[in-house]
Each structure stands twice: as structure tokens, then as C-alpha cells.
């Protein structure tokens, strides 16, 4: 534990960002994700794998910018495979890395919990990015609890510099303590840019595969390893207590604040003068440091995002500790919330913000892009009045207005299984359709499809193939025929996959062909058994931004029926012209990509190519 009294001094600005591997020349602005990637590279990691997931995606994307002779970086079909791949490299004696978002760890958990027993050969680090506030996820689970469950240490950087430093450090810890290490990031760290001083890459001589009994997880080895894991936990508690990264900011001893990660920044932002204990790792807890700190102050307050993880642990040590009584357990912390928490604790004046500057808030939810090929499928499902089991991806937005064509959404790949269950429940009168994107299908949909065929479920699967992982920004996957580094590779043929697992009713259609799409889905739903409709069209943003000739509305032909508004296309909005009490529609030519979906829906033939209406 080190003592810090002075605030850190800013570094000088870098002159160039061009050479990513360059070192020195002071600090450069980096997001947390860039910094983790840099840390992985500097640590001499040779294999990195991930499945994209906000807010973790950019870590692997940034790793792919480093020379391929330095490390192999790959997208894997899902987080478990990514972890297995990384772990295989670790078995092989090289430093390995795996990144995922918090819910991705659920997928990888099966491997992780056993890997903790096996230990590592090459250093093994997982970066897991939580999403407090649920900016782009389906829950806000707290990965620190996972660390404890898995007996895997969890490091918590509080800014980009620490993200780099802790990542490098994690490799040392991993090899020293023979365990995988989780570096837990959050959205705010992942997507915040701040200056980072970088270092150089270390290179290691690999010792190669080491044959040891614990490499094979068997009851006998596991039984032997569990006590070792428990012992490791206490060794690391001591280690962290002694680490210079556990920082005690000396101050007024009437109150002591214990915090870690992003919360530390908020505390420093709003509160000055009190004692602060900053923990670099939430698990295992640096018990000695905590004990010493708590003993030195009159009152202990824990500031942490999400679950009362540290609070519970410290309370269990016998200290009276306050935390969630002041700070919310749900949602993302912010300087305001931390301030208000301290106000509740009596440390600060409550800040009443003058609310004179309050204006009607415009609702601007994320929407499917103009020309999004998913729109057609959900328009068809909407018309079919199907019971739709959704999945994770951009298309989850179809659950919202105006499409409102999705009934369930649980987790990656859940749609098909959910649909099977709905069908087996036997009381659904509407056709049951599972909708799943191409990347999600590869991630976790295929076992579900096999299950559906195996169990002869009467469902339809609509595979929305936009040839990218769109939600996270357009990453490649086995269906795109390109690797993370852009090299060509085998491209999965979905139809063949479906046939191979026993799907008899299969049709491939064009996502922009509304009539055909509708008919294909309708016929598929009438098929007894598992039917698959594959709707193909590339995402309009990635990998290539698609912009066809725009359309325009002939106002005199528009009957204001608003049929087109059901697409939820951002290029469509009301014009000021009204007919019979309804607004006519106009098209924003700059955002219209010319997909023709609105043209296909319009019952008045008033949507024409802009060029035709304005030839100039």
C-alpha cells in the first residue's frame, strides 16, 4: 500500500498518433479500451480472442492494429470459444488474452470456473466490461461477484492509464499466482479518453506446453486443486495489501472512504480532504490494508457502482460500514449521485441545481437505420401477427414503436430455445417465430436450432442475415468470410448448416423484397415442424456504407395514411402539410438510402425516386 498526497500532474501532449507501437514521447489520449489493448500488447501477449460486445468491442479491434507477428488476434464465434482459444494458448505457454462484455462472461463461465482450478502456463487475462446504466445491454450484472464465484482475481482500473498498467500487471499476477485474472472495466472507462503514458512490449521465450496432471479437469485433480485455489486467495489478499497500487490518500480521519475503479474518480471529483482507500482489486480483498484503514478512521463509507460487493466483504470483517444506504445499487454512478450520497452522509451540502433551464425533452430513442434490412422482416411479422421470440442485436429495436413486432428477448441465442418452449407450451394460437441475426446465430443459435429439430418443435426461424455484427459496429464473423485482421477465410453457408442439422423447410429471400419475404414467412409458419427463412441483405452501415439514390414523396399523391411511418425509418417524418387531419410525410433525402421498403408499402404510389421528381 502506498501513500499518495499530491494530485497527479498532467503529462505533455504527444505529437503523433500515427505509429501505434511507438513508445515514449509523453502521454497520448486513449480510451480505456485502447489502453487495455496497449497493455495486452506490451505484456507480450501472443494470442487474443473475443466476441464483440459493447462496451468491450474496441479492445480486440485495437489489438488487431498491432503487428500480426506480435500477436494473433481473432473474433471467435462466442465468448466461451474465445476463452477456450485464449486458454489453449496459455496451455501452450504463451501469454493469452480474452475480452468480453459482462454478459459474455456468462457464456464463458463454464470454462472460467474450471480454469481457475487448472491454473495457467502462459499468463491469462480476461478483460470484462460491465455496463452500469445499461447503455447497450440486457442487464447490469456486476462482474466482481463473478470473480468471487470463480475464485478469479478482479482488478479494477479507474482510468485509461490504469487500464494499461493493470493489464500488464495482471499478466505478472497471473503467472505468479497461477490463475487467470479478470480486468474489470465499465462503459465509462472503456469509452473515456484520457492521457496515457505507454511503455514498451516485453517479449518472452515460451517454455511450451507443460505436462502437468491438473491440465486435465477430472474429479481427482479438481479435488486436489480446490484447496490450492483457496490458499491462493489468501496469498493474493496479502499481496494486494502490500501492493503499491493499493493507495491510501491521507486526509481527515473523521471519515474514510473505501472505493475502487471508476467510483474512485467520482469520489476525487466531488470530495476533498477526507481519507480515501483506493483498492486496485475488488477480489481478493486486501484485508490487511482495509483493516488498517478502517482502524484509522472514525467512519467507513464504501463508494462502489452496482452491488455492495466491497461493503459486504468489509462488513463481514466486523466493521460498521456504510455504502448502499447513500449510493444507488442500480444504475451508473455519476458525480451528481456521489455528491448527493455524500450529502446524505452529511459530508457535503446537497446541491440543488437551479432548474430554470428545463425544457421539454424530445424522445429520441435509437432506431433501426434508414434502409435497415431488418425492418422488412419485422414488417412482415407484424402483418402476420406472429408471436416473435427475439434475440440480441440491432433488431431488438423492432420490439419498440413503431414496429412492435417482438415479444421476447433474453440473451444471445435464446430466441430459438424460447420459441421451442413457447411451442411446447401448446397454448399459442399465433404462429411462433424466432428471429435471430447472423452473428447471434453463430454465437448461440445453432445449438438451439438443433434442439428445435431434434424435438420436432413447430416453429419458424427467421435468420436475419446482414453479413456483419452490426450492433457492436460491424465486426466480422465466420459468416462474413473475413477475419478480424481482414484476411479472407471460409464463409459459413447458413442454408447448409440448417440442412445439415435436419431443417427440411428452408427458403432464402431478399430482405428488401417485402412481398416475397412476407409470403416466405407465412408459408414457413404453415409448415409443421422447424422451418427456416434466411433473409439476406447487407447492413447499410458496415462494412460498407450503402447509399442508393434517394426517394421523395409527391405531396399531392400522399394520402397521409402513415403506412410508411410503421417502418420507423429515420428518413421519414411528418411534413407540415396536412390532409384530413393527418400529416403528410416527407423524406429526408440525405438520410434515405433508397431501400424501397416505403415504396413497397405505400398504397398511393406517391413515393418516387428523387431524381425523377427533381431531375436537376
Amino acid at each position: 500500500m502506498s501513500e499518495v498526497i499530491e494530485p497527479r500532474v498532467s503529462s505533455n501532449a504527444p505529437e503523433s498518433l500515427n505509429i501505434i507501437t511507438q513508445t515514449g514521447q509523453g502521454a497520448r489520449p486513449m480510451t480505456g479500451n485502447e489502453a487495455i489493448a496497449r497493455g495486452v500488447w506490451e505484456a507480450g501477449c501472443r494470442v487474443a480472442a473475443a466476441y464483440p460486445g459493447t462496451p468491450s468491442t474496441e479492445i480486440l479491434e485495437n489489438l488487431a492494429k498491432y503487428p500480426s507477428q506480435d500477436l494473433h488476434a481473432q473474433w471467435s464465434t462466442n465468448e466461451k470459444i474465445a476463452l477456450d482459444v485464449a486458454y489453449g494458448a496459455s496451455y501452450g505457454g504463451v501469454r493469452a488474452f480474452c475480452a468480453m462484455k459482462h454478459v459474455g462472461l456468462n457464456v464463458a463461465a463454464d470454462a472460467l470456473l474450471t480454469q481457475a482450478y487448472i491454473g495457467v502456463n502462459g499468463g491469462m487475462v480476461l478483460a470484462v466490461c460491465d455496463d452500469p446504466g445499461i447503455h447497450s445491454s440486457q442487464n447490469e450484472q456486476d462482474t466482481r461477484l463473478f470473480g468471487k464465484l470463480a475464485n478469479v482475481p478482479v482488478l479494477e482500473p479507474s482510468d485509461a492509464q490504469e487500464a494499461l498498467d493493470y493489464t500488464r500487471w495482471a499478466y505478472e499476477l497471473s503467472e505468479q499466482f497461477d490463475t487467470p485474472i479478470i480486468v474489470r472495466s465499465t462503459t465509462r472507462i472503456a469509452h473515456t479518453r484520457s492521457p496515457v503514458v505507454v511503455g514498451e512490449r516485453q517479449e518472452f521465450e515460451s517454455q511450451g506446453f507443460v505436462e502437468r496432471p491438473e491440465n486435465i479437469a477430472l474429479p481427482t485433480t479438481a479435488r486436489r486443486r480446490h484447496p490450492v485455489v483457496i490458499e491462493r486467495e489468501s496469498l493474493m489478499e496479502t499481496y494486494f495489501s502490500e501492493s503499491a497500487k493499493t493507495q491510501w490518500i491521507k486526509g481527515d480521519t473523521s471519515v474514510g472512504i473505501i472505493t475502487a475503479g471508476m467510483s474512485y474518480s467520482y469520489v476525487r471529483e466531488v470530495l476533498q480532504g477526507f481519507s480515501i482507500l483506493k483498492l486496485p482489486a475488488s477480489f481478493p480483498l486486501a484485508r490487511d490494508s482495509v483493516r488498517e484503514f478502517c482502524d484509522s478512521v472514525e467512519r467507513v463509507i464504501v463508494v462502489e457502482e452496482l452491488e455492495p460487493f466491497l461493503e459486504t466483504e468489509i462488513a463481514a470483517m466486523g466493521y460498521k460500514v456504510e455504502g448502499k444506504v447513500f449510493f444507488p445499487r442500480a444504475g451508473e454512478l455519476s458525480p451528481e449521485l456521489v455528491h448527493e450520497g455524500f450529502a446524505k452522509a452529511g459530508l457535503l451540502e446537497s446541491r440543488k441545481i437551479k432548474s430554470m433551464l428545463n425544457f421539454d425533452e424530445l424522445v429520441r430513442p435509437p432506431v433501426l437505420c434508414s434502409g435497415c434490412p431488418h425492418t422488412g422482416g419485422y414488417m412482415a411479422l407484424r402483418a402476420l401477427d406472429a408471436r416473435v421470440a427475439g434475440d440480441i442485436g440491432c433488431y431488438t429495436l423492432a420490439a419498440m414503436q413503431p414496429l412492435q413486432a417482438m415479444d421476447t428477448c433474453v440473451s444471445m441465442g435464446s430466441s430459438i430455445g424460447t420459441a421451442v418452449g413457447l411451442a411446447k407450451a401448446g397454448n399459442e394460437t399465433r404462429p411462433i417465430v424466432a428471429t435471430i441475426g447472423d452473428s447471434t446465430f453463430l454465437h448461440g443459435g445453432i445449438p438451439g436450432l438443433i434442439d428445435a429439430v431434434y424435438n420436432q418443435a413447430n416453429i419458424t426461424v427467421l435468420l436475419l442475415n446482414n453479413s456483419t455484427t452490426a450492433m457492436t459496429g460491424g465486426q466480422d464473423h465466420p459468416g462474413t468470410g473475413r477475419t478480424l485482421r481482414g484476411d479472407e477465410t471460409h464463409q459459413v453457408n447458413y442454408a447448409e448448416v440448417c440442412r445439415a442439422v435436419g431443417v427440411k423447410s428452408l427458403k432464402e429471400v431478399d430482405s428488401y423484397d417485402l412481398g416475397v419475404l412476407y409470403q416466405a414467412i407465412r408459408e414457413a409458419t404453415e409448415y409443421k415442424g422447424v422451418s427456416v427463412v434466411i433473409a439476406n441483405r447487407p447492413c447499410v452501415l458496415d462494412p460498407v456504407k450503402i447509399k442508393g439514390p434517394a426517394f421523395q414523396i409527391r405531396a399531392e399523391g400522399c394520402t397521409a395514411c402513415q403506412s410508411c411511418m410503421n417502418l420507423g425509418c429515420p428518413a421519414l417524418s411528418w411534413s407540415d402539410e396536412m390532409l384530413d387531419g393527418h400529416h403528410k410525410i416527407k423524406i429526408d433525402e440525405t438520410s434515405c438510402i433508397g431501400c424501397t421498403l416505403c415504396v413497397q408499402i405505400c398504397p398511393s404510389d406517391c413515393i418516387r425516386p428523387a431524381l425523377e421528381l427533381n431531375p436537376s
Partner: protein
Amino acid sequence: MNATVTGPTNVLIVGVGGQGVIMVSKILARLSQQQGLQVKQSEVHGMAKRGGSVFSHIRFGEEVWSPTIPMGEADVVLGLEWAEGLRWLRYLKPDSGTFISDTKRIVPPFSCRDRQHDAKHGYAHHTVADIVAQVPNTFAPDATGMAIELGNERVANTILLGVLSTVMDFPVKDWLKVLPEFVPAKTLETNLKAFKAGRAWTKKPHEPDLRQTTVQAQAGPLMRRQVSLEITEEWCKSCDICVKMCPERCLALDQRQIVKLVKPQACTGCRVCEWLCPDFAIAVHVEAVPAENISVVTATEVRV
């Protein structure tokens, strides 16, 4: 013991996905870093390119801890879109904050969702004059319009950057030095012009433009339109066209396979069902009724 709030400079840059919020943020972050200050810049994207609201917090000063700006603490709110600018006004320092916003309106489809007769836009109704009345330090150029005049709509953000440069302490030459690092070489010249145009705009006197940004107000509806669907059961042949084509999904076939109005509250009286019924089994009647006589806006069904 009194704790005090430290005060770095806080700039909040907001807009809609694709407008260039991040580029403006990066320029400002770089600039302040070059001035030897500590900088944190936090953004939320992910959903951004799906037409959602995009925001970027930039904080710089001798010491910066939190990446986000507390509410009421922004020195500058820079909006690349009018309603987005208004959305984040809560974050502006009430007394001394500067509000800079393009008057461009990007109306989301969501604010056009009300299907009833005489429905109003959900878009922000405040005019520039409304805002100036509350925030004296308001700069509301028609940056997009100016950008179009310069030949590239996408340089609207650089025009606003020019406006921003007049309220910040950094030397102009430093701004001009950073700009080329972030804009494509082929548009550099236009961007430089745009930056200067933004600066020049602040030198000119401006009356708040009252015509801007307000959606044309509709006269208050004294009358509501009452919709009724007349369904001739005997004529319906169960072809399902109306059911599938109804934009609001109001219709269904009943047990006898005869069309039925199942969601009367959703029916807007658009007549698509009437037009497409090959059997003339549906007639849509729309009648003006004094507003006070209608408690719930719902269509009625008459079966004959």
C-alpha cells in the same frame, strides 16, 4: 470541514448520430491537452449510429477526475442539433454558461407517432427567442445552412467549432493547427473556411430568429374527428387483405372469418382498408364532433 467542488472547464457536445460530435470533441480534447491541461473525454455511442442522441463530455483543467460533467456544471453546451441542444441545457451552468447550437432540426420518426387526427409533432417547440430569454449567452446560427452555402453540409460542426473558439481562451492559431489533424485533407480548405465563418458569425449582430425551429403551430382543434367503420358482414369474403394491410393492425377476422375492428383506439380512419377491400365490405366514416363530446379517442364499429 468543508469540502469544495473543484472546477475544470466542462464542455458538453451533443447531437444526433452521424453529425460529427466525436470529431468536435476530439479536436477540443487535443487542443486542451496541447495547452498542458489534463483532459477527460467521455462519450456514449453504440446506439449512436442508430439515430439516437449522442453526447460527449469534455473536461479539462489542472486536475480532472470524473469523466462526466455534473448537471448544472457545463461551461458550454454545444448542440449540433436544436432539440439535442435543448435536451442538455440542464447541464449548463445556470448563470454563466454559454449555449451554442445549430438551429437545424432532425425530427425523429418517434415524434411523429401520434396517429390520431389533428395530432401534433413531438418535436421541441422552443424558439431561439425563448432560449435567449433564459440563457443570454446563446449563439444559435443556422450552421447547417451556412455549411450548405459553403458547399458541404458536413462542415456545420466546424462552423460551430468556430463559434466555440470565440468563447474559449485558446489562441486561434492553436485551433487552426489542430483542425488539420482531424479533418480529411480534401475537405481541409472548406473546414478552415467554415471555422472562420463560425468566428465571423459571432461578430455580427443577431436578432433571435423567431421563425426558426418552431413547428408550424396547428390551430387548436375545437372539433375532433370521430371515426366509424361500417362493416357489411354479408359482403366480406374473408380475403384478409384489410387485416394485413391495415397500418395500425386494428382489424382481425373473427371466428366466422368476418372482418372485425379489434383495436378501435388504434384506428386513425386512414381508409386503407376501405380502399383495398375488393368486396366493399368496409366503409370508413369520419365525422367532425365537438372535442368536448369525446372523452376517449376511439373508432367505433357498425356492423350491418
